[in-house]
């Protein structure tokens, strides 16, 4: 249940005691169906490994990824260097392992920032409607008019030194509208329910209605999407870094590894293969986890 709690806890810290009882069955139901879902089990195991890799890369390798003697450059995979060595002679296995941290960090930072924005903006726009909703609608139209990768490419190119923070910031700017729109729709459908009307009739304050009645019930679809979106962001980060506008050396990143290995595809294909597998697996795990969560929390969405 660790993944589920993680996603849920950060989103609803404020109203933990209030919703414990009414919510228990929803999450318990979700957990029951998740436990039987082979896709969920697979992605949970993979994510556990990948996140451990990001937090404690030392557990997986005792080599130093920044120790690069040129005399051992361009070695094929061997018992000593499992993934071979790169052009500079760095141990490629340790570099690929250490690459997990930046990718997963950017993925989680961007996804949870977007979730935060989506919760606040979605609640305000969906509950109060009015001008906030109108402005939000136009703003999302605007961001949607610029293709994601294209917008991020042009924006990132303006920033001269780009670290995790800068890349994450730009991805949030182009990413928040999707989730906000989802949250708004979800809030809108809950706001029309009788129990909200009842709470209003009893004279409850707006802030309390939103916190205790709307948020817990509107959060379902967004939670699953947060995990899917983490996967999308990790893919986008690797793509942008590969194109040369994302993270920069000396950062250790799969995108940079792909970029540098591209020129040696015929001579040293292993330099391309390993970061590709890791990017693919990481994005895959997050997206599968997200779809499993979404189907479990909101079975109606399974249709698509």
């Amino acid at each position, binding site marked *: 249940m660790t993944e589920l709690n993680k996603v849920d806890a950060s989103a609803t810290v404020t109203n933990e005691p209030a919703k414990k009882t009414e919510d228990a069955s929803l999450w318990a139901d979700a957990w029951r169906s998740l436990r039987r879902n082979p896709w969920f089990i697979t992605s949970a195991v993979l994510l556990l490994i990948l996140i451990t890799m990001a937090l404690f890369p030392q557990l997986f390798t005792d080599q130093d990824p920044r120790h690069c003697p040129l005399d051992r450059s361009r070695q094929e995979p061997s018992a000593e260097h499992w993934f071979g060595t790169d052009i500079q002679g760095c141990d490629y296995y340790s570099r690929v392992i250490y690459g997990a941290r930046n990718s997963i960090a950017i993925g989680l930072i961007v996804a949870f920032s977007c979730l935060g924005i989506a919760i606040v903006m979605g609640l305000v726009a969906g509950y109060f409607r009015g001008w906030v909703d109108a402005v939000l609608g136009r703003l999302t139209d605007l961001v949607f008019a610029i*293709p994601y*990768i294209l917008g991020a490419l042009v*924006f990132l190119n303006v920033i001269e030194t780009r670290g995790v923070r800068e890349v994450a910031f730009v991805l949030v700017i182009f990413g928040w509208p999707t989730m906000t729109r989802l949250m708004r729709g979800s809030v809108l459908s809950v706001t029309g329910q009788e129990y909200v009307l009842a709470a209003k009739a009893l004279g409850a304050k707006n802030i309390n209605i939103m916190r205790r009645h709307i948020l817990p019930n509107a959060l379902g679809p967004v939670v699953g999407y947060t995990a899917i979106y983490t996967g999308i962001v*990790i*893919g986008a980060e690797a793509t942008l870094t590969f*194109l040369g506008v994302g993270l920069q050396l000396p950062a250790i990143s799969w995108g940079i590894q792909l970029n540098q290995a591209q020129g040696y*595809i015929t001579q040293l294909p292993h330099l391309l293969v390993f970061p590709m597998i890791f990017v693919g697996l990481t994005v895959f795990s997050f997206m599968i986890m997200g*779809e499993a969560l979404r189907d479990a929390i909101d079975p109606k969405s399974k249709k698509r």
Partner: protein
Amino acid sequence: MTQYIIRRLLQFIPVTIFATLIVYWLVFSMPGDPIRALSGDRPMPEAQVEAIREQYNLNDPFLVQYAKYMWGVFTQGDFGTTFQGRPVLDIIQQTLPTTLTLAAFAFVFQGIIGIIAGILSGVYKDRFIDRLVQVSTVVVVALPTLAIAFLLQLVFGLNLGLFPIAGIQQGLVSYILPAIALGAVSTAMIARMLRSELIEALQSDYVRTATAKGLKRGRVIGRHGLRNSLIPVVTFMGADLATMMGGTIVVESIFNIPGLGGQIFRSIQAQEGTVVVGIVTLLVLFYVTLNLLVDLLYAVLDPRIRYD
């Protein structure tokens, strides 16, 4: 219907203006002075720098620069000139056909494979073929285009040697792998979407009536079930043609294809702001127009949309 079209058109205008304005502003706030870079080691006389700045409207206030530029785009199809004196339109005309070929290949690929897979999976629900389609679509949707492209390049290009790894020297064969990479995710999404629509349609009353009338199974599926199920697929494919333009940047860079996407990438790195603005403006216009058309098409196909 007329009212709906007018409302959508009115929304279209400010969105286009702001989107292009943002791009214009971002590109021209790129670090570095292109005019100084033009002259190389020996600095140009001040008067000449001034003349060039005047020629490219660099002395005007930002909004005036932008207005002049957009005026040129819409009245004369003039996307500006590079600082080396080559018209941006020239570059677009040279690279666009390649990208369109690639997009067309991808579009046809995802249409054919996606629809066939969706029909098989929907008609033979819960059989082996359905399970196969479901598992493979889940996997493909969850992979980034970057990884798919490299995987295809390594397996089919390098290992099996069936297709060229890079470039377009070998004619249309060179487009196959990039097109599959570009269309893979959408193919899987089309298959999934069609499957669920078809399953729903085949359980509906009008399909039961058609079967009861004694129509053959193939005709029931083809004329009655499939027809309604294809509506969302068609609109999805329209919208997807627009998103595909973003994907071409990655795919063209990986397979080294001299198209529009690759050109943006090269121009950004070479700091050719005018080329970037020209191409991005074109793509944004294309994207917004296509989305508008898809919305209108949707309204034509599905009457419920018009009356909201």
